[in-house]
């Protein structure tokens, strides 16, 4: 029997993937664990292995986006017939099958007895009824949600209780979304993100060592950073005199209307980088492993510290947006990041990332790449520093910027040119017009 190759769910929440390329052709021998095709998910492109030995009988989907679970190919014995539309369903014969056809089917056989194809509709009827019965049982449980239980007990699953214990959350403060108002693990995790009105959790008495299990977010972060670390990178640093930029910012703030978001220096920086990126497309790029992809637009990712870890929501089309628009976008995504309410769309398609630790007083640092992006800018604090101008020592607000570049995609000079432009635009914003 041929094995159906179905698109696997490679990550939680993965609904579909894009088949980039088949690594084996129809008719080729395939071994279990051999890479079979390349799949692009929103995070990364990866090779998917074959799950069976045999011959790749048929490729059903050559390329393009496919839903998880759909059949994309068949592996089996040479010469086996596979139906192109087969998705695991056995063809159900019509009840009015002619005797001739059925006689073929019911010829002398090695087996005693037969299921009788004419009875398949009855079987389906039974199965459907069984499914309804099961669904009714589920509804009963869901309905029990509405039952008021007033015996004062806190209903929480054993896992929820343990999590609450571990996180130092008072379970009585958590509202339950399980059947009959039972508190389940998710409810506790949700409570951990939103600051609880309850008193600050004390460290567990008698134990000083904290062990945090990796959440799936953390695991993803760890994986991606490990990948990023393997890229051959170089860093370039400049200091920019922020006098003019700060002045510009103040003028913009003065012009604000009531509901407009206050633009920050970061917003200005975002705009400046966007402008520089479209001028220096070599830096506005992705390294895909097979190619370098350069973009005509700048979707800028802003690194945000969210409760569950680092996230990088994207400000789209920053090159064509005003500072005001960028400020509004930034405020929105950052708020949502802090609430844990970002959508997948918020995180996708960034072409460049800015990471700003200036608010912590960090003078300078080197950021790790955000693959597949080829570059990332690390921003420190703006500090009053002595500089030499026209032979005289003056005190100026200086901002230190460090650009990390993936050397496979960007040469030193490209990176340097970009960074010079950024400095120039920061020092004289009018040059961006």
């Amino acid at each position, binding site marked *: 029997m041929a094995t159906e190759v179905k698109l696997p769910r490679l990550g939680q929440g993965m609904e579909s993937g894009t088949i980039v390329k088949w690594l084996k052709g129809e008719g080729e021998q395939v071994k279990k664990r051999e890479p079979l095709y390349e799949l692009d998910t929103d995070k990364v492109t990866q090779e998917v292995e074959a799950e069976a030995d045999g011959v790749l009988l048929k490729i059903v989907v050559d390329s393009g986006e496919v839903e998880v679970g759909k059949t994309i190919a068949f592996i089996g014995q040479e010469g086996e017939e596979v139906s192109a539309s087969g998705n695991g369903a056995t063809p159900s014969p019509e009840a009015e099958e002619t005797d001739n056809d059925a006689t073929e089917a*019911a010829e002398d056989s*090695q087996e005693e007895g*037969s299921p009788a194809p004419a009875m398949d509709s009855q079987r389906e009827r039974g199965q459907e009824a069984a499914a309804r019965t099961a669904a009714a049982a589920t509804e009963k449980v869901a309905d029990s949600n509405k039952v008021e239980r007033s015996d004062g007990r806190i209903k929480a699953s054993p896992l929820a209780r343990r999590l609450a214990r571990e996180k130092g959350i008072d379970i009585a403060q958590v509202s339950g979304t399980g059947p009959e108002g039972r508190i389940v693990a998710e409810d506790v995790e949700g409570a951990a993100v939103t600051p609880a009105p309850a008193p600050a959790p004390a460290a567990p008495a008698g134990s000083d060592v904290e062990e945090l299990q990796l959440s799936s977010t953390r695991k993803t972060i760890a994986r991606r950073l490990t990948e990023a670390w393997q890229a051959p990178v170089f860093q370039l640093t400049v200091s920019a005199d922020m006098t003019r930029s700060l002045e510009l910012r103040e003028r913009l703030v003065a012009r604000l209307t009531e509901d407009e978001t206050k633009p920050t220096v970061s917003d200005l920086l975002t705009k400046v980088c966007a402008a520089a990126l479209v001028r220096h497309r070599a830096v506005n790029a992705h390294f895909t492993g097979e190619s370098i992809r350069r973009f005509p637009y700048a979707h800028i990712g802003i690194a945000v510290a969210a409760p569950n870890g680092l996230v990088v929501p994207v400000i789209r089309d920053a090159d064509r947006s005003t500072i005001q628009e960028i400020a509004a976008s930034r405020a929105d995504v950052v708020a949502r990041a802090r609430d844990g309410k970002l959508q997948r769309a918020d995180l996708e398609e960034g072409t460049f990332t800015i990471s700003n630790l200036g608010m912590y007083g960090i003078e300078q640092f080197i950021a790790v790449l955000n693959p597949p992006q080829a570059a990332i800018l690390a921003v420190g604090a703006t500090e009053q520093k002595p500089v030499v101008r026209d032979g005289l020592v003056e005190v100026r607000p200086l901002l230190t910027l460090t650009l990390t570049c993936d050397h496979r995609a960007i040469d030193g000079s490209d990176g340097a040119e970009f960074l010079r432009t950024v400095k120039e635009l920061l020092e004289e914003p009018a040059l961006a017009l």
Partner: protein
Amino acid sequence: MAKVEKKPRAEGGLSEDELRDLFREMLLIRRFEEKVEERFRAGELPGFLHVAIGQEAVATGVCAALEREDTIMSTHRAHGHALAKGTHPNSIMAELYGKLEGCSHGYGGSMHLYDLENGMLGANAVVGGGLPQVTGTALAYTFRKQERVAVAFFGDGATNTGTFHESLNLAQLWKVPALFVLEMNGWAESTPLSQHAPIEDFSQRAVAFGMRSVDVDGQDVEAVYEATREAREHAVAGDGPVFLNVRTYRLVGHYIGDPQVYREKSELEELRETKDPIELLRARLELSDEDFEQLDTEVTAIVEESVEFAKAGTDPKPEDALKYVYA
């Protein structure tokens, strides 16, 4: 269903009319079984099906000799027994189609036909499974002082089971009014006599328990009838159960579709020519072709009607599966 009158008999032998009735009944069973084969091959009948083609004279002869209040228990090859005992072809066919109108209301299928009204206490899918229950049924008749017999049909394969031995031993020990009818067709599914028993004369298996045993030619319906009559009298009189060692022939495979790879084709052909109980009786009665045609048309109509009846029947509700678990 025409029933043979039970006349008190001074001299032996059934009358011509009576034999004709029996012939018609055997032919009905034959056509019924053929129709079942046909419908199975058409993919309409699910599960297991075992037809009794070649063994019609045994079912017919035995049941004709029983009273209505006598009871039978049968095997996996039960259609003939049920029909002969009085279950209507409609009831059986509807059961094979899994309909509520079936004799077991769709709960049993071919191997679990039950018809209490007609004294059919169940076909059994477990070889020998019904035998001790026949002993028990007969025991109840003794307790209640009823003039009834309980009859077990079984094949040579069953005589090897522990169940068989325990049942006959106890039946004879307690002298219950039971008839144990061995339909010796020489096959336990695909295993011939020579491979499943170290003996050939199965009356020994009854004699071993001190039970009366009678050899019967199972292809001669009259002989079967006579032997059963006498055995019944013996049992009802309190003289103990009787073992009817009936030699018969299975002219088909074990199950419908059985390619009988284990059987000599020539042997089968020869049996079909020489041992068909219907042909034998037809010859004996010297039935004209017209007479035969007429009977055949009649019974075939009945059989075809039963298929119509069955197909038009009511499908049970899926949730009905939970009914009838407990009384």
